[in-house]
């Protein structure tokens, strides 16, 4: 085997040492790392810039909207109060109880052999319930039945327009007095009738309370 002398072994060793110099490798690694970090930093900076710009736009928008919103809130209070006032006044006008139709019902229901001596009616202001009372004299062969007929006739009339109608005699007494009607002398009874009723709200139909059978 021929003898082989490497006269460059020291140079080669130095070259090898330079190639695997940890400091140099470390510097390279740090360089790459710094490049990556700088890239990431710019990427994040762009993201933050977008968010900041959005927040700035919202702030500008809010600065212009806030006074308008405050003015609108103040105006809303005024307009709501005005609308509520109008609703209240109009509802008071619309939901009044009209007495003329009630008087008409009484006029139609009272037969000629009954005389009403006193009529009293009241209606709760702003409410839906009312009451009437009728005092009178009923004349006939059976004056009590005449009074009862008046009560049922008036009840039927009231049920056409009102709900929860109740009626009762607070008094019904035979009278010693007699009356002359159509040439006949008839017995009389004094009665006092009470009615309570509720006026349905517009649109509501009266409850189908059955009329008592005579």
């Amino acid at each position: 085997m021929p003898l082989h002398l490497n006269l460059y072994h020291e140079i080669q060793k130095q070259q090898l040492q330079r190639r695997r110099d940890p400091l140099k490798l470390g510097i390279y690694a740090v360089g790459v790392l710094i490049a990556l970090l700088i890239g990431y930093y710019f990427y994040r900076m762009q993201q933050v810039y977008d968010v900041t710009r959005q927040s700035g736009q919202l702030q500008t928008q809010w600065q212009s909207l806030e006074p308008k919103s405050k003015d609108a809130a103040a105006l809303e209070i005024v307009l709501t109060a005005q609308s509520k006032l109008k609703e209240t006044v109009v509802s008071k006008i619309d939901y009044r109880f009209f007495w003329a139709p009630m008087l008409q019902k009484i006029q139609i229901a009272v037969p000629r052999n009954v005389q009403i001596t006193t009529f009293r009616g009241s209606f709760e202001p702003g409410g839906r319930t009312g009451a009437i009372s009728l005092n009178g004299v009923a004349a006939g062969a059976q004056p009590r039945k005449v009074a009862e007929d008046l009560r049922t006739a008036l009840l039927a009339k009231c049920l056409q327009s009102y709900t929860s109608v109740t009626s009762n005699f607070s008094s019904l007494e035979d009278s010693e007095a007699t009356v002359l009607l159509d040439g006949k002398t008839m017995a009389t009874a004094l009665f006092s009738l009470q009615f309570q009723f509720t006026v349905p709200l517009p649109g509501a139909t009266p409850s189908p309370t059955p009329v008592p059978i005579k």
Partner: protein
Amino acid sequence: MKFEAEEIKKAILSGIMVIIVLYVYNNMLLDDLNRREQHANEIIGSLNPQISKAREQIARTALLGETAPLDNQVLEQIKSSIPAGEPITWFPPRIVDFFKRQGIDKVAPPRKGTEAGDPNMPGFKKIAWTIDLPRTEFIQLGIAIAGLENEDPLLEITGVQIEESNDNFQYQHATLNVSTIVRDDKR
């Protein structure tokens, strides 16, 4: 491969350098960005609902504003139907005139009753009156009441009393309790 002491030192030095670079990068650069982003996100988070609410408020008011002229017109109409001045000066003559027009001549001037404001009706108040009709007929009275209820929408009859007239059985004595809505200039 075996490292020499010099190389180990250099490797440690390189590691320290990397740690320093990362520390500086994180604390001085990224942290600042994160703080700015967080601050901006907080602003966005708080402003978004406020802006939505403000828009809703403006839209709601605009919607109310559409019906407001009509409401105002109705209120002005109602107000203009109420004569100016104290009701005691104009209401009794108006009622007496009305019943006379209906053919009921005997009318006592209405007596003023209670006067009350309504918290739901600022600018208005209610006055109760008693109207005495000493001599009337039932049918005539019914027609007059119908006319009164139709002619004066601000008037509400709260009570009616009809009795036999003491002096003449042909006639009745009627008493009406009414309530009127009038302007309340003090409110």
